[in-house]
């Protein structure tokens, strides 16, 4: 009797040890195999992709006219299916659309007066020309983006290359990011945007009711090795490039001329520079 109890305790002890070890062993084994996971193996980067350490934008205010600014906004908004609430919806396609509030806006890049774009720089005897110049404003893709910190679902995030991007699938429409953004660069879709898109561009998805949207620095075009729409339509007024690369075109432009950024004192480190 005594002997068998001793034996039983021995066996029980060893098996308890074994059971305790299994989770540790399995996690160890799985972490080893993760390095060669199928996801990593089957994906390869596009060859023609444009890449940068930190994407930035330079807007040359002397080259920007009202007509060019309008073209830029138009090119961007059309390509990204940004709704225009002044557009009368097609009654046949969207019979249930309720009346429009024309004050409602969704915008990615738009014209602003100097005193609104740079409220901290509005001096009493500011050169007259600044009062008439069109200033294009958009998402600044800040280095310390407050919207990224505010987003509770990580729908807004900072990509490795500096672009502040949105995962529209993940946005829950809480609008914390809109409150956090000091530049008003974000718009909320209070209603289904589709009836207010004149010509839907099928190469870019639309958004849906209840999500926030903003400029994505044409991440979809950079992936194909193309310049953003705004740079393309700007006739040289907008240059997009790598801020961290001292050889890049935008760094050279910044070297040559005096530049300002919007609300720099807030410490968000905007990546959009305005050449004066």
């Amino acid at each position, binding site marked *: 009797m005594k002997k068998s109890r001793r034996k039983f305790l021995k066996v029980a002890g060893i098996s308890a040890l074994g059971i305790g070890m299994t989770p540790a062993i399995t996690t160890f084994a799985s972490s080893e195999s993760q390095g060669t996971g199928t996801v990593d193996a089957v994906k390869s980067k596009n060859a023609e992709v444009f890449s940068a350490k930190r994407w930035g934008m330079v807007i040359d205010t002397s080259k920007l006219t009202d007509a060019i600014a309008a073209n830029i906004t138009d090119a961007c908004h059309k390509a990204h299916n940004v709704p225009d609430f002044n557009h009368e919806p097609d009654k046949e396609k969207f019979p249930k659309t309720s009346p429009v509030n024309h004050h409602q806006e969704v915008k990615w890049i738009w014209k602003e007066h100097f005193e609104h774009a740079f409220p901290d720089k509005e001096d009493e005897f500011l050169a007259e020309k600044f009062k008439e110049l069109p200033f294009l404003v958009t998402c600044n893709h800040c280095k310390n983006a407050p919207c990224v910190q505010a987003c509770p679902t990580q729908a807004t995030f900072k990509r490795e*290359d500096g672009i502040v991007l949105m995962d529209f699938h993940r946005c829950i429409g809480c609008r914390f990011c809109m409150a956090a953004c000091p530049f008003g660069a974000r718009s909320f879709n209070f209603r289904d945007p589709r009836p207010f898109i004149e010509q839907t561009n099928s190469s870019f998805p639309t958004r*849906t009711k209840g999500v926030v949207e903003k400029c994505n620095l044409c991440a979809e075009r950079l992936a194909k090795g193309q310049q953003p729409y705004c740079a393309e339509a700007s006739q040289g007024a907008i240059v997009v490039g790598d801020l961290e690369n001292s050889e890049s075109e935008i760094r050279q432009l910044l070297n040559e001329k005096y530049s300002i950024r919007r609300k720099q004192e807030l410490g968000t480190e905007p990546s959009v520079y305005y050449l004066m």
Partner: protein
Amino acid sequence: MSKNAIIVGLVIFVVAALFPFWFNLGRSDTVAPKPELSEQAKAAKKCVLEKYDMRANHMSLLDEWRDSVVRDADRMYEAANGEKFQMSLSTGDNSCIGCHTNKEKFCDKCHDYASVAPYCWECHTNPKEITQ
């Protein structure tokens, strides 16, 4: 006497409980519909994954693609069969919808049958297919 009543009651219960099964037994519309392939898809013959894998796992694949494109800026998918695909549901000819051009005959057929309503189409679709 009560024995008969119990048996009758049991039979009624079993018949009632199995109602969905015998009710649908002879009906032809309960057979799962076959999605119709578009001309392009027929010509291409190869899809991203093997047929049965695709049938079962296309939603996880799309989920993975989305994260890859949006988060990692990685848009090229090399399938196990060696083909390369642009990771996109609805943009361009090399996307899902670019090949499976008819959403109603391809996607909706099974989705309707399985009574699932994915909200992909609220943002991703061709304008001509918007019916609301």
